[in-house]
């Protein structure tokens, strides 16, 4: 599980996160919602050690992640699918997957085969360079590459961005089933609050770097003010 | 330092002229006191100052990294040498003008393919140029004198100079003070030109091109013309400096312009302060007395100057200085000076990027 307490991050004079606290528990999806610039991406980057927080602590289970290098956080079982998916276009599908498994203790070829079984499209494209993949295929590859190392925590940054609605729906189902079958702690950053809330168990709403609401996904989804002012979910 | 800094801002051309004239006069006065050896060192330093002014303009202001300025120096030196060899009676000023123009032309030739290149590509390309130029000179040995080079032995001290300072020897290489005076005056003139260039419209356009070429283009600055112009200016300064440098040594030879000269130039420029007028002067002064400096260090550390290590001490010290300056004080001595003077505003100065001059 991930426990964030009192986390603040500054970029120069700009305060990207202000005293953010929340918990994400295993076997559950925690959605982090909010508008552009709310600090969602910064939150994930802080958990992965890509940015150094000014104050606050981040715990992975009982272990503090303060001053732990990004690569070591990844090796401790935190998989982070960054904004734009982070698929390395100049490498093949199989090389990307191999890279995902390298730092972990899993058997690489077995792991890759398991992912091909899960995502048959990737198996068909295994020798293709990733620059040739479609958006949906890239997202699948990014998921597969994150899951291959059997992580404890999965951080997803805007996975639905640029995907068609059916593909998004498919993706959300995949995330949910991975979360439940592997007992994963999933933190799902989304602008698309509607599809995120549909599969999430818990939700945190960020606004200008601060938490304005947190609770179960159902509660957040039911709050009319939140829907209207922070999530942009106004039904006419 | 504060004095030189006066040349920076809110200065008009007349005040700049006065400052440079006073500075030059002080330097000229010093040549009356210095012994001949120190005078010829000073002359070399003044010649190098001219080259560094051009280099600093090119790298610091237009953002184009060149390792080819020793090549431009060679071009200017050979132009002057070959001309003087055949036309001994030509006034020196014409020979220098020729070196400046031919140097500038060589800059144009290099600039045409190079201004499309950035950073390391450009640095490597200009390095290749300076590596190719001296073998080329050796190849046409009937004109360039090959390995042995050309001697400037027929130049004489002008009459007015002899009248001004009685007892001055007529042959050029016999009188160190006259060469030093000549070099200092030439350096003064180029310094004045560069000070104006730095603050001209072109100078400002140059900095814009360096910092943000897209914005510059949107504002109607012609990128390739501006970059080419920077090259031509730097090369003509190097051509003039090279001619002067050879005149002081009374010969033009390939071995005067080795690849390591480019390293020396770069070191002096970085040490003085990239893109600064005062830095070029500091670089020139450091060059003037580098031999003394090195022998002093040799004696301090007890290294025998005749030993292998002693003979290579200058290369080691220069290289180490260059590395340390770049790692710990990338704005050079001029940058440190500004920091010391502007302690109160130091934050603002530091924030306003590398180009404080």
């Amino acid at each position, binding site marked *: 599980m991930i426990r964030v307490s009192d986390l603040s991050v500054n970029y120069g004079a700009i305060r990207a996160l202000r005293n953010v606290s929340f918990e994400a528990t295993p076997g559950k999806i925690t959605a982090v919602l909010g508008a552009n610039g709310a600090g969602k991406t910064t939150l994930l980057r802080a958990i992965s050690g890509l940015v150094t927080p000014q104050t606050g602590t981040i715990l992975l289970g009982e272990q503090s992640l303060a001053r732990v*290098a990004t690569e070591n956080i*990844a090796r401790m079982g935190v998989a982070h699918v960054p904004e734009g998916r982070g698929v*390395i276009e100049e490498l093949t599908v199989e090389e990307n997957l191999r*890279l995902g498994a390298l730092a972990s203790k899993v058997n690489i070829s077995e792991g890759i085969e398991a992912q091909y079984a899960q995502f048959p499209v990737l198996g068909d494209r295994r020798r293709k360079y990733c620059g040739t993949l479609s958006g949906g295929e890239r997202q699948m590859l990014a998921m597969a590459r994150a899951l291959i190392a059997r992580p404890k925590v999965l951080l997803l940054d805007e996975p639905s961005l640029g995907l068609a609605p059916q593909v998004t729906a498919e993706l959300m189902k995949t995330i949910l089933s991975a979360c439940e079958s592997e007992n994963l702690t999933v933190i799902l950053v989304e602008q698309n609050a509607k599809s995120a809330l549909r599969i999430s168990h818990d939700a945190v709403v960020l606004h200008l770097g601060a938490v304005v609401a947190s609770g179960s996904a159902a509660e957040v989804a039911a709050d009319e003010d939140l829907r209207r002012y922070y999530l942009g979910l106004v039904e006419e | 330092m504060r004095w030189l800094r006066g040349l920076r801002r809110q200065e008009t051309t007349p005040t700049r002229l006065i400052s440079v004239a006073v500075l030059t006069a002080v330097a000229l006065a010093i040549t009356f006191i210095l012994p001949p050896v120190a005078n010829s060192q000073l002359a070399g330093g003044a010649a190098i100052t001219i080259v560094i002014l051009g280099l600093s303009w090119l790298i610091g202001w237009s953002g184009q990294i060149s390792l080819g300025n020793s090549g431009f120096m060679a071009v200017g030196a050979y132009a002057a040498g070959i001309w003087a060899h055949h036309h001994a009676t030509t006034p020196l000023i014409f020979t220098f003008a020729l070196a400046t123009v031919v140097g500038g032309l060589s800059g144009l030739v290099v600039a045409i393919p190079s201004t499309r290149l950035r*950073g390391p590509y450009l640095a490597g390309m200009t390095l290749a140029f300076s590596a190719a130029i001296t*073998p080329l000179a050796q190849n046409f040995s009937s004109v360039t004198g090959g390995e042995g080079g050309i001697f400037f032995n027929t130049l004489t001290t002008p009459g007015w100079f002899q009248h001004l300072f009685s007892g001055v020897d007529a042959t050029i290489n016999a009188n160190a003070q006259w060469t030093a005076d000549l070099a200092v005056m030439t350096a003064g003139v180029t310094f004045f030109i560069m000070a104006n260039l730095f603050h001209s419209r072109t100078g400002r356009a140059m900095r814009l091109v360096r910092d943000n070429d897209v914005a510059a283009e949107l504002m109607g600055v012609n990128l390739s013309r501006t970059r080419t112009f920077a090259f031509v200016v730097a090369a003509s300064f190097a051509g003039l400096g090279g001619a002067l440098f050879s005149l002081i040594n009374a010969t033009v030879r390939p071995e005067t312009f080795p690849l390591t000269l480019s390293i020396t130039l770069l070191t002096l420029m970085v040490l003085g302060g990239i893109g600064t007028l005062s830095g070029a002067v500091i670089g020139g002064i450091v060059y003037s007395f580098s031999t003394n400096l090195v022998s002093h260090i040799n004696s301090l550390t007890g290294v025998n100057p005749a030993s292998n290590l002693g003979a290579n001490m200058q*290369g*080691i010290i220069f290289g180490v200085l260059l590395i340390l300056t770049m790692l710990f004080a990338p704005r050079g001595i001029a940058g440190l000076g500004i920091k010391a003077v502007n302690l109160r505003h130091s934050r603002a100065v530091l924030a306003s990027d590398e180009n404080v001059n």
Partner: protein
Amino acid sequence: MSSFLTSSFMSNIFGGLAQGVIYSLVALSLVIIWQSTHVLNFAQGAMAMFATYVGMTQIDRGLSYWWCVILSVVVGMAFGGITERVLIRPLYGKPEINPIVVMVGFLGVIEAVTTAIWTSTSRNIAAPFSQIYFKAGGKLVLLSPFIIFQIILAVVIMMLVAALFRFTRLGLQLRASALAPEVARLLGVRVNRMLTIGWMLSAGVGSIAAVILASGSFGLFPTNMDGVFVAGFIAAAVGGLDSPVGAIAGGLIIGLTEQFVLAYWSPSVAPLGGMIVLVAVLMIRPHGIFTRSVSRRV
């Protein structure tokens, strides 16, 4: 057939290839560093030269040629790794002129120190291969056992490097670190370590080039890699600094060009030949022949 082999055209081809493989190795070593750290290492030639001095002068102490070669490469790799850690690491994220200036300064220091230790006198390193040209039908073929060894060694090294990058776990991590350092770190790749290893590999490849050069008729002296570095850089720029294949092809192109200029014009203008090729290529493709994208990266 034998008259073909002894023709001046074929002699130039052999000579150009022999020189070209050295340039290819230097170019390849520059590309390895460029890809991972975006630094053009101006001290590459000097570093390799220094490593060759340390390694090959052990012949004087009775070490065999082959052990000296291995020693040179090991010293070169260590030197490369230390250089990256000490001189380059503080400069990541700084303006691109900073590492250029630092490496130019380092070049000066290495050459001065080498001259201080071993003097500037050229010395010959005797390779266990004859330098005497073969004969066919009574005429010379400009190939000697040493030249054949030189070409084979260079090709083997290139293939080893290619295989390392292509087929090993280390190679995959090296490529990922160069292509997308942040993503690589998120996947647990120790990117900083990869950068150091990249510099070590590069310096090792450079050392092989210096060893070959020193073992041939050129000899070993403190500035012997200067011209080779310039030619190697031109080769890398012709091929595109991003492309290992381009580096190797560029090296052969420059080697052959220089050889033909040398043969049909004059030895002293040979360096100019390479430069003219570079100018011609860059006028058409400012990022070299083999780079995939034409977007501005430099």
